[in-house]
């Protein structure tokens, strides 16, 4: 069975807020994001027959279905960190292709948390006793991937900085973005060193927020007014410590990418726009190598010369400003990766960053940590 052509992205919504404080409950934020995506599609809560969520649902899936007063025939909760929402789009497409639902709602709503404290993740986690004493936090784990990539391939801090710089060129046109100043290489390199070799500006922003995506069957898609965005390939995998045979220089995209490209029947050269999960600059460099946009080890060179900038380079990426500059709702950037790819395919991105003739786009999520365990999911979409 394939999902190719059997599911469409019918609706999208990105919450405009970046800081919410105690103004709204998490459940209500899910509800407002869901409503936004359904209205974008021209559908209502009564049309939803499948609900898909991740780890940010207070009380779990059943609590949210209750809160939204949905009547569903398909439920899926998958939690792989910030990449969850790309897995959920894939799972929704699979459920729709199998006839298990026809209007699938996926929502994200959460509050940001600074990742500097070493957290005890609770009892019963097999690896935790062997990691916690050594002070692992999100940034120093990604930093170890960056350090090794530099050692093995000669990648430099200047090269990594180009990811932030490119994102800032896009974010200047996004009124909701946290960082709207166009940044220079020096801005990144002069920002404080958080965990060598990653500077403050090698990191994504920390924000509150949310978003939602509605995936629909071809029959429903035909009745909707927005330009049609068809899912043509999905791939998922994970990557970990492999029993101690650790290799931090590649990501799970080496598996999820080829699965998605094969199903879609396209190659990296066909991709006009890519949303690449950008928790840290190194995440983007390793991912574009692993997806085949350049050779292994050459990601540092590839991101130079404005290659990620829309209208300038070979691979326009994260034209909303991405996690680097726009937002990272509740430390999870997966849903916004899908949303900006859909905007590009519809021709709804800001005119200054809209890719011309954008007919095929890719969205990739990396959730968890490059330094220990992470989820990888790749979606390929086509404008019909």
């Amino acid at each position, binding site marked *: 069975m394939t999902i190719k052509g059997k599911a469409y992205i019918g609706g999208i919504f990105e919450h405009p807020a970046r800081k919410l404080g105690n103004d709204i409950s998490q459940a209500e934020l899910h509800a407002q994001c869901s409503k936004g995506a359904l209205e974008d599609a021209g559908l209502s809560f009564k049309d939803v027959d499948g609900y898909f969520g991740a780890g940010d649902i207070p009380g779990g899936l059943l609590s949210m279905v209750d809160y939204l007063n949905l009547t569903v025939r398909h439920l899926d909760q998958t939690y792989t960190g910030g990449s969850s929402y790309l897995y959920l789009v894939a799972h929704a497409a699979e459920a729709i292709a199998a006839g298990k639902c026809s209007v699938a709602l996926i929502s994200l709503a959460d509050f940001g948390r600074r990742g500097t404290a*070493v957290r005890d993740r609770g009892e019963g986690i097999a690896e935790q006793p062997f990691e916690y004493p050594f002070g692992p936090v999100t940034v120093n784990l990604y930093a170890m991937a*960056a*350090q090794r990539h530099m050692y093995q391939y000669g990648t430099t801090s200047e090269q990594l900085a180009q990811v932030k710089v490119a994102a800032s060129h896009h974010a200047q046109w996004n009124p909701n973005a946290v960082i709207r100043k166009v940044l220079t290489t020096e801005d990144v390199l002069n920002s404080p060193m958080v965990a*060598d070799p990653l500077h403050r500006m090698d990191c994504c922003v920390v924000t509150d927020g949310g978003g939602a995506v509605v995936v629909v069957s071809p029959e429903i898609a035909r009745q909707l007014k927005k330009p049609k965005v068809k899912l043509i390939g999905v791939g998922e995998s994970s990557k970990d410590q492999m029993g101690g045979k650790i290799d931090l220089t590649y990501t799970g995209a080496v598996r999820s990418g080829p699965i998605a490209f094969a199903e879609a029947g396209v190659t990296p050269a066909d991709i006009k726009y890519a949303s690449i999960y950008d928790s840290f600059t190194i995440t983007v460099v390793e991912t574009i190598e692993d997806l085949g946009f350049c050779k292994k080890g050459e990601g540092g060179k590839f991101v130079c010369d404005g290659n990620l900038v829309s209208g300038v380079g070979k691979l326009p990426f994260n034209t909303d400003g991405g996690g680097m500059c726009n937002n990272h709702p509740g430390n999870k950037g997966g849903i916004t990766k899908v949303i900006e790819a859909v905007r590009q395919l519809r021709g709804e991105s800001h005119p200054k960053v809209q890719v011309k003739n954008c007919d095929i786009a890719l969205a990739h999520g990396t959730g968890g940590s490059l330094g220990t365990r992470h989820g990888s999911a790749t979606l390929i979409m086509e404008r019909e």
Partner: protein
Amino acid sequence: MATAYQDRKIPVAPLNAGDAPFFEGAAAGKLMVKYCNDCKQYHHYPRPMCPFCYSTHTEWRQARGTGVVYSFSISRATGPIPYAIAYVTLDEGPTIMTNIVETDLDTIQCGQKVTVVFKPTEDPKLAVPMFKPA
């Protein structure tokens, strides 16, 4: 630039069944690693069942305590003091998460040879292996 090493308070997470020999071994000055008697490979983190061949014929063995730095990062913002998290590849094969200690943290390099030292944790019965330049 120099970033002097300082001892920090080492926390421990609740141990799961089977974990204790690693930490009690460290408290006795021994680096203990899991070895599989069927596929003849070491693995880490330790499990009762080998993650390579899924045999349950695994045993704890004392490693030599020497290896090379696979990668590292100096946490400067986590506080209260800078520390160097690292992966060290043991001469026996597996790469383990640890800290690099007792050296100027700014001189640590990938590929550097290191040797084990044992650091006490907040639990007086348990210690952890860390590494310093060989």
